[in-house]
């Protein structure tokens, strides 16, 4: 199977369509992020000024006026809406989100970049693990739907699935950090350690701290994939080509993997792309619960500290990040489905 075989003219069309879609999502999302604050009756600069005054500082009115001017400039709130929009995009393209109010004058972009790897790491590892295992288990459960373990697995998946991310993360926290204190309650590694990624002691500490949040995300995800795959598989079993293979006496293992799972997997790949947005939100929440220094916790600090650029930044990064990830997943699809390759 050569590169040419897979990526030919029709794939080019597909690629264009998907890239176009991604760009549209990004534009819509970022525009929404742009519009919302400007439609809000509250102005983030005024909010900050209010907060500063409330906290008891005695500030000279002239100083406040100068501060307001500077802030409006930095936050791109000067000029007409259209001018602001253009300005907004030009700054974005340079990666400039403005400084963080909370940690002034550190640029918001920097802070977010530092937090992002944690979120990505958590997200990537847990989605891959839960997708793979969820589909495997779901496929087995769907194919051998009469065994006892499938009923229990289904029950477990059905019980976990409806529980909101926060509650589930919280339950695990209480169980394994309070009731049976096996894991630390917060942070991504032991306090006092520096980030030495090549140090096995550090790595172990990271694993210890991130195990529960990862587990929380994996379990919620696994249930969903398991149930979805099981439903798909039970439909595919009645397909002609599966029945034919069974009548012909093809080995059961071959049927399960090559006939059933490989076909049932296809909608799940699309499904993965579609659910990345939701899984991302879940990751943010879980980070907050467990104090992992990723974008989730960053969001919380930004909210508490009235840090407008940080929140904007998180929104924008989230939208761009998730859209690109979805695009990548969609582009991988033709590798698995030969029907999409040619037509």
């Amino acid at each position, binding site marked *: 199977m050569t590169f040419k075989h897979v990526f030919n003219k029709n794939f080019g069309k597909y690629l264009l369509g998907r890239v176009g879609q991604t760009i549209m999502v990004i534009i819509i999302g970022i525009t929404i992020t742009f519009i919302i604050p400007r439609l809000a009756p509250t102005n983030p600069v005024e909010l900050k000024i209010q907060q500063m005054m409330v906290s008891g500082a005695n500030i000279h009115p002239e100083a406040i006026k100068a501060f307001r001017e500077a802030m409006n400039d930095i936050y791109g709130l000067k000029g007409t809406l259209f001018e602001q929009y253009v300005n907004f995009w030009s700054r974005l393209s340079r990666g400039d989100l403005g400084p963080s109010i909370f940690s002034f004058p550190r640029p918001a972009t920097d802070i977010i970049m530092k937090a992002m790897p944690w979120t990505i790491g958590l997200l990537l590892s847990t989605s891959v693990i839960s997708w793979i295992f969820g589909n495997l288990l779901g496929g087995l459960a769907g194919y051998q739907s009469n065994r006892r373990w499938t009923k229990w697995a289904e029950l477990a998946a059905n019980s976990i699935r409806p529980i909101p991310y926060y509650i589930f993360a919280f339950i695990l926290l209480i169980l394994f950090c309070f009731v049976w204190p096996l894991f630390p309650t917060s942070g991504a590694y032991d306090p006092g350690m520096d980030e030495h990624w090549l140090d096995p002691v550090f790595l172990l500490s990271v694993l210890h701290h991130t195990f529960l949040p990862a587990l929380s995300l994996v379990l919620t995800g696994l249930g969903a994939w398991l149930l979805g795959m099981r439903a798909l598989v039970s439909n595919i079993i009645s397909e*002609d*080509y599966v029945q*034919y293979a069974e*009548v012909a006496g*093809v080995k059961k293992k071959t049927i399960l993997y*090559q006939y059933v799972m*490989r*076909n049932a997997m296809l909608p799940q790949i699309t499904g993965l792309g579609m659910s990345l947005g939701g899984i991302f939100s879940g990751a943010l929440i879980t980070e907050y619960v467990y104090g992992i220094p990723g974008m989730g916790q960053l969001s919380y600090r930004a909210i508490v500290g009235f840090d407008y650029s940080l929140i904007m930044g998180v929104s924008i990064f989230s939208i761009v990040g998730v859209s690109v990830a979805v695009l990548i997943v969609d582009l991988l699809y033709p590798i698995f489905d*030969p*029907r999409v390759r040619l037509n």
Partner: protein
Amino acid sequence: MSDLILQTKGLRASYITHLYGIDREVKVVDGVDLSIKKNEFFGIAGESGCGKTTLLKLIAGFCKPPLQVQAGSVEFLGLKEPMSLFEATEAELYKIRWRNISYIMQGSMNVLNPVRKIFKSFEDFAYPHMLELTPAGFKQRVIEHLGNLRLSKEVLETYPHELSGGMRQRVTIGLATLCSPEIIIADEPTTALDVVVQRETLGLIKRIQKELANTIILVTHDLAVHANVSDRIAIMYAGTIVEEGKTTDIFDRPAHPYTQHLIRSLPRLGDKEKKGYLKGAPPNLADPPPGCRFHPRCPLAVDRCRVEVPKLELKKSGTMAACFLAE
């Protein structure tokens, strides 16, 4: 050494479902005795829903819930010892599947795995039964075999959706015949094909039967096809065999009222009279009528028909029929 290759005795099977407190039993095959000879083209004809496909699956030894065999047996007589298919172990069945009994399924549209190349399908289906060949030797054999069916070897590297319907049908036939099995079961192989391809396919199947000198069990509702290829025909109605005999006898002197009606309804060249039709519809197999299953629609029915089930017996006309009123 008998000249039979497969025999069913009193085969009874039903679909049994329990759902939301409702139990239901659909008696889809209700007492079928068949004796199928070696080197013969045996046809089974009947309306949709009469149980033909289920019967075929049972003959192939394939029985999955909710289908359950209630009584009777299916015996394969091609090995040294007769093998009862429903008493054999999974391993024994595996040995004869595809090698001794193969299957051409209804509707060639969707019978091949869409994500596997054609050659992989051949590997999945046939190679485990031809392990005496090396992988290269196997591939060679497949290429030759497909050549006989006028398929080039490029076909092996394609995916099913890249082939036309007729090519897919030939691939399926190739799959079923590769191991030169003693019995090939063909379920409506020509339905869903246009007439030209239909003729080609039938010709192909006939040729294969002559070359391999094996048995083909062909099921179709189309009597014209049977007239063309079958040596003997069994007519099925509502899960039972109502008539069985040589093709010429069935067409010239049908004994059972249902068969008579079927033959009469076939269009013939020069026919000018209006065709009649049977009122009513095939019975609900979950609640079949007592006695002869055909009696609600039979113009000749008498009281005995409503109570007793007629047995399949040799009539003077030369065919075996299950009717009290036929001689």
